[in-house]
């Protein structure tokens, strides 16, 4: 089977067939994935080899003599319960810190307050509405900036986003940022990450939200602080010059 799989994989260039490029500072998800891959890989190959060896050795066609008559072994049962238990417990404890970092330790300001979100992302069939707080740093005020499917964030800073939905469930998925969170109508949630590389990346909807689910695509742009500030100012000016009123934009 392994030969088959490797030959199957060899038919196509492997670019794009593994993790998408990571653009955030935190590598704990990738690291954990590889730790688990190594452990489970050893177990899989080990049990597979053992099984094939038994099948070859104890093939009834050439295995002479009586079978190994046994109803089990208490010693072995304990052994193969305790070793996996230790491994699994190790894995469980080993990844708790990464989980806390991803979901429980929201970035704080120096004054001990939680860092405010840089923008609010609202999912709706089938687009991402983006709302920046504007100059006063407060959401839902007159100077807010409204955009659709276009999110910009400054590089090398802890970014906090407020995410929500207004109709059905969506999921805010940034493959390159190793970030995914369902957005739930009626709930306000926060995600955070620290991008370290410039570029434009996909925002994917990963929770089925209706027939147009596949095209609910946004784009996140990581750029330097100065470029970001310039872009935000331009977005604000464009909005002010636009002939649409706020009510229409909603």
């Amino acid at each position, binding site marked *: 089977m392994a030969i088959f799989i490797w030959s199957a994989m060899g038919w196509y260039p492997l670019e794009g067939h593994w993790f998408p490029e990571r653009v955030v500072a935190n590598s704990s*998800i990738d690291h954990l994935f590889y730790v688990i891959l190594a452990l489970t890989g050893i177990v899989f190959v080990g049990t597979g080899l053992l*099984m094939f060896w038994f099948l070859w050795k104890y093939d*009834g066609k050439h295995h002479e003599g009586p*079978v*190994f008559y046994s109803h089990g072994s208490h010693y072995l049962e304990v052994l193969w319960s305790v070793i*996996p238990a230790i491994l699994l417990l190790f894995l469980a404890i080993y990844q708790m810190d990464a989980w806390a970092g991803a979901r429980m330790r929201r970035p704080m300001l120096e004054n001990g307050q939680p860092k405010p979100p840089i923008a609010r992302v609202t999912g709706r069939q089938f687009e991402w509405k983006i709302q920046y707080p504007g100059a006063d740093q407060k959401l839902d005020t007159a100077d807010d900036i409204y955009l659709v499917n276009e999110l910009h964030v400054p590089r090398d800073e802890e970014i906090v986003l407020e995410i929500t939905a207004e109709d059905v469930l969506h999921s805010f998925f940034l493959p390159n940022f190793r970030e995914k969170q369902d957005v739930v109508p009626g709930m306000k949630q926060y995600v955070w990450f620290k991008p370290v590389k410039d570029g434009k990346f996909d925002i994917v909807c990963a929770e089925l939200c209706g027939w147009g689910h596949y095209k609910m695509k946004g784009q996140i742009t990581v750029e330097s602080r100065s470029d970001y500030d310039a872009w935000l100012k331009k977005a604000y000016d464009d909005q002010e010059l636009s002939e649409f009123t706020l009510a229409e934009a909603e």
Partner: protein
Amino acid sequence: MSSITADGQATHSHSSHEFGLGEFISTYVFSRDHKVIGIQFLFSTLLWFLIGGLLALGIRWQLAWPWSDMPVIGPMLFSAEGGQISPEFYTMLFTMHATVMTFLVIIPILAGAFGNYLIPLMIGADDMAFPTLNMLSYWIMWPAFFFFGASFFVAGNGASSGWTSYPPLSTMTESAPGSGPAQTMWLLGLTCVGISSMMGSVNYMTTIIQMRAPGMTMMRLPMTIWGMFITALLQAFALPVLTAAGFMQLMDRTVGTGFFAPEGLVVNNSAMAAGGGQPLLWQHLFWFYSHPAVYIMILPAMGMVSEILCCFARKPLFGYKPMIYAICGIAGLGFIVWGHHMFVSGMNPGLGMTFMVATMMIALPSAVKTFNWLGTIYGGKIQFTTPMLFALAFVSMFVLGGLSGIFMAATPVDVFIHDTYFIVAHFHYVLFGGTAMAVFGAIYFWFPKMFGRMMNEPLGKLHFLLTFIFLNGTFFTMHILGAAGFPRRLADPYHYETFRPLLPMNQFMTICAILMVASQIFFILNFFYSIFFGPKAGRNPWRANGLEWQAPSPPGHGNFDFQPIVYRGPYEYGTPGASDDFCPQTQPPQEGEAGTTGAH
């Protein structure tokens, strides 16, 4: 009442008089005989298996050649779109593929077909405890078949909010095509399946507890029966939750309650009236059943595989009691791990840690079972028959599927791979590589008992080999897609730049999937040919130990032509000092024979 008499072996004194239409109907259609009901379930579920497989090919076609005409049936089905699969139809395809496979194939084939057929035979009873209830449990499936089948044809072309049917998408009739009447049909179908399972579960529990033959203690039950018993318990405790939740969703859809809809929803630019609910509530209720259901879909398969492995390794099951404890452990833990489906749902992240630890621990009894299976084949005299090949495939595929589950249990990793093809790979390995392999093995194994004839071995091996190769070609590749972040349920993933390089791999998978479905032709041919023309099988063609092999093939009404009395455990193969390499459970202990009292 008359009965199917077999080879004149049944000594039940039924005169072979001509029977009329009424008697035909009561014997073969509205039968209360567990064997007929089991075979009815088997035929129905195999038919739906084919339908579910064809639906999967529709999904694969779209992912390999998006927006291109589907050959042959495309122009017939979607003449309006010029033969292309529309995104609406695509969402229906994966919703109904999963629904059909879960609720109309895997659960009823294990519990309905094999549970019904095997339980009384393997415990030495003449029928189920409640034969009429048993008959109803099959016939209540027909409304379910009707509702699921009809939902393809009502406005909106089949339910399309995913088999998990997450609200608000599923409760708002305005939200999407397919969330119209089809979704209501889906809920009604689900309710019927639930009622059927509940009837079965009550019946199985009572039968196993009350109707065992003399000497058949709980610790002499075959593993299949243990699997079915624990499955029945799981259904009895978990299913009412889903049925209640289904009713709540039905109310949300039809009379405008708001169990699952929060305040202030705006859909298609109109505000929704109902509010005060919580979308996550459905997910908790749904997974509280559907996670244990994952074990409902594997425990009986594990039992049947244990049976087959022992028989063709000619050895006792290694660690009979630990195997039972492992099943109980899986079932017990199965109730407290549902939250691992919800790590990125918005549920309290603190709960995520708890569910993560519990989920990790569920790998433990699974590991115990795997090692015991390896212990079972160690030192045996292995016969590579078709059922054995399928059982061995089950073990290796289950190991792969189980190990990939650890990735999902680890909460931070789940953040990345949740709702990607990694998950799809995982559960296809467990459910197709695992359960479906066990089901094929079980069909080849018990076919002689069911129909009194043998299946063709070379054809069976060909079927095995092709299925095994193409199953891995299809599903292993999904892991690699998943690692690339490739999401499930996208009609056109190539809409995103990130996923564009994955197109050739999808085409490879689709070719494998088509060949995998095509390989089933060998099974279908073999199955139907052997029913009529296969070589006649005696009572015990595999030289197996279970009570069912002491009955005639096929067993007549009332199953046994003698009163079975059980003297030993179910897996007494290769007993030193015994006259043969197997000792049926009904064989009294012989002189000079080791370990006569049964399982250790």
